[in-house]
């Protein structure tokens, strides 16, 4: 016979050893470890001011025979705080979904119950398998003047709590972000970037319920975004990009007339087209021809003239000196 016992953090817990008398001799264990007698009041186990670490399996054995007389699982937890509820229509006009979670854990199992009231009518919110804590509703009527009232109740063994949302059909419309955002440079245009994207796949009828878009972009090196709002079309060409700088680009979507903007799409990076740098070999050739032409104007190096033959005496000196003059004259000419 499996027992489970739920107790609040900080509570005092008294466990009885099944049908045993108060004065019977018993031994208690917690997860297999013997519990000291100081915690016993007769055959009752007293746990004061329990905390989460005291959760576990508690067993009671008869003193001499070591027969298992009672066993229970103690689960220490807290009653639920007010849950967080959110409802949104990302597939207008099909319907909407609500999702919820607890702001802090309770450490014990919780069950959720959601009710949707539209005017006098009770509607059924069908629970999704994945993700958990989510349900969806199909609209039966469009353009309703009556608000929807959604109440989420969370219950566990230690208590319950609830929260309510009241909203108009139009107020909760928020599409998913645009998909497949692509940004490409434009050949021969150093200040342009071509951006294109697609309607979110969850939006069922973009023909009748068109979306408008908001594009934001900035070079990675700056913090300030530039914005463009586009009332139709799923592409746009940026024409004022800084040349050669890498850009980060995002797009958001909104129903043309109602609701709020989607979250920003996944960011894409792109750099505008830049001209190819000059080829290295061409440069070298230009330098060689220049040096060849200049050297033809220059006198042959002085050493050659002076080295020729072993000219001894002033004659040789005179030739060297003359050569030096000629070189000097030419150098002056070129300065």
């Amino acid at each position, binding site marked *: 016979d499996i027992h489970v016992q739920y107790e609040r953090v900080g509570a005092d817990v008294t466990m009885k050893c099944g049908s045993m008398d108060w004065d019977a001799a018993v031994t208690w264990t917690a997860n297999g470890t013997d519990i000291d007698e100081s915690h016993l009041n007769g055959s009752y186990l007293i746990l004061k001011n329990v905390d989460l670490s005291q959760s576990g399996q508690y067993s009671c054995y008869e003193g001499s025979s070591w027969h298992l007389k009672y066993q229970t699982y103690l689960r220490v937890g807290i009653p639920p705080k007010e849950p967080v509820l959110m409802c949104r229509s990302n597939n207008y006009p099909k319907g909407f979904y609500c999702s919820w979670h607890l702001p802090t854990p309770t450490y014990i199992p919780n069950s959720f119950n959601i009710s949707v009231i539209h005017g006098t009518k009770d509607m059924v919110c069908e629970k999704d398998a994945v993700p958990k804590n989510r349900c969806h509703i199909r*609209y039966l009527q469009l353009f309703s003047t009556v608000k929807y009232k959604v109440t989420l109740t969370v219950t566990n063994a230690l208590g319950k709590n609830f929260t309510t949302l009241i909203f108009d059909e139009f107020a909760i419309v928020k599409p998913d972000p645009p998909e497949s955002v692509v940004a490409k440079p434009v050949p021969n245009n150093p200040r342009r970037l071509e951006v294109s994207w697609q309607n979110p796949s969850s939006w069922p009828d973009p023909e009748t319920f068109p979306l408008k878009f908001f594009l934001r972009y900035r070079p990675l090196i700056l913090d300030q975004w530039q914005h463009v709002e586009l009332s139709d079309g799923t592409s746009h060409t940026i024409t004022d990009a800084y040349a050669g700088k890498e850009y980060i680009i995002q797009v958001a979507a909104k129903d043309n007339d109602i609701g709020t903007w989607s979250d920003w799409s996944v960011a894409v990076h792109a750099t505008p087209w830049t001209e190819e740098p000059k080829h290295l070999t061409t440069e070298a050739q230009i330098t060689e021809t220049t040096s060849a032409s200049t050297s033809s104007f220059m006198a042959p190096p002085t050493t050659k003239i002076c080295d020729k033959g072993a000219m001894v005496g002033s004659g040789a000196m005179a030739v060297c000196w003359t050569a030096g003059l000629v070189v000097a004259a030419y150098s002056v000419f070129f300065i």
Partner: protein
Amino acid sequence: GDSWGIFTFLCAALCNLPALPALNCSEELGAGQSIQQTYDLTRYLEHQLRTLAGTYLNYLGPPFNEPDFNPPRLARAERVPSATVDLDLWRGLTDNARLAANYRAYSRLLCYLRVLDGQVGTAELRHRLAHFCASLQGLVLSIGGVMSSLGYPLPTGPAGPPAPPGAPTAPNDFLKKMDDFWLLKELQTWLWRSAKDFNRLKKKVPPAVVTLRLEARGF
């Protein structure tokens, strides 16, 4: 009065379209452009209504001006035409039915609003209501114009607010205020719906050049 102002505004806007040079607005206008203009007018009215409704609900006082106020619909409020419609039915409406529903709704709402206009206390409210009624009249005219250009007959019906035999006006002050609350709510919802209605019409009626005759409707 102000109705001519709206009419002139429409004409001026249409005549400035770059795609149609040297256009005299008393002659040829595309049905497509008329639908666009009607759509734009519903957005303008929706914007105007936000201010008007805020002021009016404050005038009515609590609980009418509380954001979460969500009263049950009483049977008597059904006199005001409702924009609420079954999804598949709405999708399947013919262009004629779609336009006629809008035409009828705004004609009736206009009548109710005019009655309201005669009753409100403050000068500011009277001024706002008068301005709004004029714009709303422009919308009715615009829808009528679209219907005529597409060859549809204008819906006939009672011109004034229908008074069911034996049904009195609201028996007490609170119920009267409830009527006003629902009137504004229905108006708001109709303007949201019309944006979607005219979007659908825009896609189905290409901007063909059709002769448009805008006749004075005795206002």
